[in-house]
C-alpha cells in the first residue's frame, strides 16, 4: 500500500508541476470563481423595480393625474413620457421603450366626483414574464389603495357617513432571510454551482491531453495502476478546489454578510466530498472523450445545464416534471445546494444533513471507480 500511496503522490506532484508552469491556469482557478461569485451575486435577483411605463391619460383631470402619480411614486413603475393613442402604446412596446402602460379612460374624473364607476387599465408587456407577474401584483395593490382613498375623500366632501371599510393587510414574512437580501438567498447555492463549473472543466481535459500528446502511453508502461493515475490526477485539483471553497466562503461572509448559522464542519466535509465528486465527473468525461474539443463541449454541457439548472439553486425543482426531478439526483449539485443552504441559512447540523454528506461521498467513490474503469477500457481498446 505504501508503494501505491507513493505512486499516487508522485502523479499528484507531476500534476502540480504542470499547473504551476502555466500561471494563467492558476489565475483562472483563483480568479474565475471569485469573478463569478461577484457577477452572480450582484446581477441575479428576482426583485423587480423601475419598470419603464408610459401613460395614456385620455381624461387629463385632477383625479387621473392623482392616479398616475400614485402609480409612479413608489418606484416600481417609472414614468417614461405620455402618449395620446393606443397605437402609440403598441409602438412603444414593440420598440421596448416601455414595459407597462397606464391607460385612463375619458370621464375618469367625472365618474369619481359623481360616485360612478371610473375606468383605468394597466397594460403589461408579457414578453418578460417575471417582471409582468410582479407588475400584476403591484398594480392590483395600487388599485385597491387608490380605490379606498377615493371613496374616503368622496365621503369626506359630502359629509356622508360611509362606514369605514376594513381591509386585509398582507404581511409577508420571509423565513431564514428576513432582510430579503438576494445575496443571502443565492450565495449558498451559488457556491456549489461555481465550484462545479470550475472543477469539471479542469479534470475533463487532463487524460485527453496526455493521450493526444502521447505521454499517456509512457505513464502506462510504468508500474502505475489506473486507479492510482485517476487518484493522483484528482488530488491536486481537489486541494485547489477546496481552497476555492474556503475563499468563496470567506468572501461571502465578509463582503455579502451571508449569515453562517450552522456547523462549519458539516459544510467543510460536504464541500470536500462535492469537490471530489465534480472532479470525478470531469475524469469520467476525460476517459470517454476522444479529443479536447469534445471533452470541452461535454464539460460545458454537463456543468452548465444539469449542474447549474437542475441543482435547485436558481430555479425551484418542485415545478419541474418528475422525469427531470429524477435526473437531478444524478448530479452532485443538488445535494450540495441542500447542504450549503441548510448550513448557511437554516442552521442545520449533522442530524439533518448527514445523509446528504454521505450520499456525496458515495457519489465520489462511484464516479472515481467508473473513471478508472472507463480509462482502462479506452487505453487498452
Amino acid at each position: 500500500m505504501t508503494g501505491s500511496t507513493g505512486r499516487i503522490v508522485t502523479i499528484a506532484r507531476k500534476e502540480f508541476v504542470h499547473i504551476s508552469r502555466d500561471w494563467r491556469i492558476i489565475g483562472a482557478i483563483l480568479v474565475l470563481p471569485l469573478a463569478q461569485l461577484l457577477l452572480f451575486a450582484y446581477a441575479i435577483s428576482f426583485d423587480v423595480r423601475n419598470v419603464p411605463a408610459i401613460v395614456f391619460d385620455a381624461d387629463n383631470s385632477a383625479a387621473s393625474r392623482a392616479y398616475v402619480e400614485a402609480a409612479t411614486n413608489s418606484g416600481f413603475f417609472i414614468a417614461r413620457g405620455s402618449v395620446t393613442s393606443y397605437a402609440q402604446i403598441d409602438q412603444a412596446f414593440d420598440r421596448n421603450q416601455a414595459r407597462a402602460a397606464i391607460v385612463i379612460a375619458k370621464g375618469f374624473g367625472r365618474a369619481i366626483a359623481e360616485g360612478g364607476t371610473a375606468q383605468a387599465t394597466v397594460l403589461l408587456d408579457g414578453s418578460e414574464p417575471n417582471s409582468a407577474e410582479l407588475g400584476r401584483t403591484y398594480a392590483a395593490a395600487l388599485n385597491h389603495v387608490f380605490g379606498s382613498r377615493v371613496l374616503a375623500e368622496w365621503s369626506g366632501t359630502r359629509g356622508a357617513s360611509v362606514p369605514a371599510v376594513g381591509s386585509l393587510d398582507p404581511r409577508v414574512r420571509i423565513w431564514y432571510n428576513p432582510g430579503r437580501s438576494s445575496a443571502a438567498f443565492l450565495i449558498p447555492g451559488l457556491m456549489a454551482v461555481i465550484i462545479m463549473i470550475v472543477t469539471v472543466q479542469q479534470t475533463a481535459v487532463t487524460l485527453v491531453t496526455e493521450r493526444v500528446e502521447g505521454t499517456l502511453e509512457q505513464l502506462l508502461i510504468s508500474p502505475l495502476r489506473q486507479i492510482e493515475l485517476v487518484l493522483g490526477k484528482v488530488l491536486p485539483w481537489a486541494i485547489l478546489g477546496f481552497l476555492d471553497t474556503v475563499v468563496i466562503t470567506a468572501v461571502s461572509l465578509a463582503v455579502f454578510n451571508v449569515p453562517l448559522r450552522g456547523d462549519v464542519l458539516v459544510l467543510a466535509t460536504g464541500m470536500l466530498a462535492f469537490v471530489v465528486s465534480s472532479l470525478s465527473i470531469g475524469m469520467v468525461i476525460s476517459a470517454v472523450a476522444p479529443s479536447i474539443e469534445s471533452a470541452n463541449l461535454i464539460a460545458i454541457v454537463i456543468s452548465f445545464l444539469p449542474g447549474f439548472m437542475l441543482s435547485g439553486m436558481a430555479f425551484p425543482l418542485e415545478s419541474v416534471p418528475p422525469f427531470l426531478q429524477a435526473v437531478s439526483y444524478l448530479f452532485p449539485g443538488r445535494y450540495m445546494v441542500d447542504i450549503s443552504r441548510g448550513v448557511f441559512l437554516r442552521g442545520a447540523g449533522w442530524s439533518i444533513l448527514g445523509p446528504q454528506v454521505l450520499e456525496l461521498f458515495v457519489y465520489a467513490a462511484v464516479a472515481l471507480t467508473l473513471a478508472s474503469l472507463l480509462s482502462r477500457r479506452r487505453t487498452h481498446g
Partner: protein
Amino acid sequence: MNWRRYRLIVWKETLQFRRDRLLLPIVFLMPILQLLLFGYVVGADVTNLPTAVVDHDRSVVSRQVTSMMSNSGYFRVVANPATESDLQPLIDSGRIKVAFVIPAGTADALARGQSVPLGIVVDGADSKSASVAAGYASQIVSAYNQQRLAKVAGRVGGPTLNTSVRVAFNPSLKAVNATIPGLIATICMLSIVAIMSQAVVRERARGTLEQMLVTPLTRGEYLLGKITPYALIATIQMAFVAAVGRLWFRVPFNGSFFTVALGLVIFMFTSIGLGLLISLVSRTQAQAQQIMMFVLIPVIVLSGFMFPIESMPAEIVPLTYLIPLRYALVVLRGAFLKGASIPDMAVPLSAMVGFSVLIFGAAVLMFRRRLGD
C-alpha cells in the same frame, strides 16, 4: 478567392469534425438537452405550492380567503396546523413552502372597518418560489379587498374604481414563451464559440497551421473554409430549437421570418468573431477553454436570458449594453411574441451590426497579423 480551394478546406474541416466520434452526437444532443432544461426548468411556472393555513379565526372571512388562495391554482393547502409554532417543522422539512396565518377576530375587525394583518410566511431559502408566492398571495388579498370596497361603495352610492390589469403579447404569462426564442440565439452562441475557440489554436498546437500556410491557400479562403461548416451546424441547431419550440412547446410566432433570420445572421457573425478571437489569443487548447468559460458565463448572466435585466441593480445595467446577446434576445422575443417588424427593431439590429463589425473585424485583423508571424 479560389472556389475549389475554399471547398477543399470546408471538406477538410468537415472530415476532421466527423473523425471525432463524440462531437457530432454532442452537437445534436446539446439542443435537445437545452430544450428540455430550459423548457421545463427555467420555463416552469410556479404553481401548486404546498401550503399550510393556520386559521385562528374560523369565520366566513377566513374560509373565503382560504378558498380564494386554493382556487387560484398557485397554492395547494396540504396542512392545517393549529398553532404557528407547528409551522417550523413543516417548513424545515420542506413539506410546505408557504403558510397563511389568519389571526383570531379577523371577521369582527373587518366588520368594524379596521385593517387586519394577514400573515404570509414564505420559505426564504428558495428564492424564486419565495418571491413568486409572496406576489401571488398579495395579489389575491388585494383582489379580495377590492371586492369588499366595491360592495360598500355600491351600498352608499360612492365612486368605485373599475380597473383591470391586462397582459399583452403573452397573456398566460408562460415563461416558456420567452425562454425558447431566447434559447435560439443562446444555443447559436454557445456552440459556435465552443467549437470556433478551438479551431485555430488546435492547428497551431499540432503544427498543421504552418503546413497550411505553405500551400497556395490564401488567408481569406482558409478563414471562410473554417467558418462554413460550423455556421451550417449552428443553423441546423437553431432551426431544430425553433421547430421544437413551435410544435412541442407551442410558442406563438407573430413576427416575420425575415426579421428573425436577419437578426440571427448578424448575431452569428459576432459569435464567430468571438470564438476566433479566443482561439487567436490563446496559446494552448486548455487556455482557450478557460478564456471561453471566463467570457461566456458573464455574457449569459448579463444578457437577460435567464435573469431579467429589470431586476439587476442600476450599477450593473450599463454593462448589459455591451453584450451582443442582449440585443439578439430583444429581436427574437420581439419577433416571436410581439410581431415587431424591422423598423421597430432598428435600434437593437443596428447595435448588433455595430458589434459584429467590431468583433468580427477585430478577429479578421488579428487573424491576419497572427498568421503573418
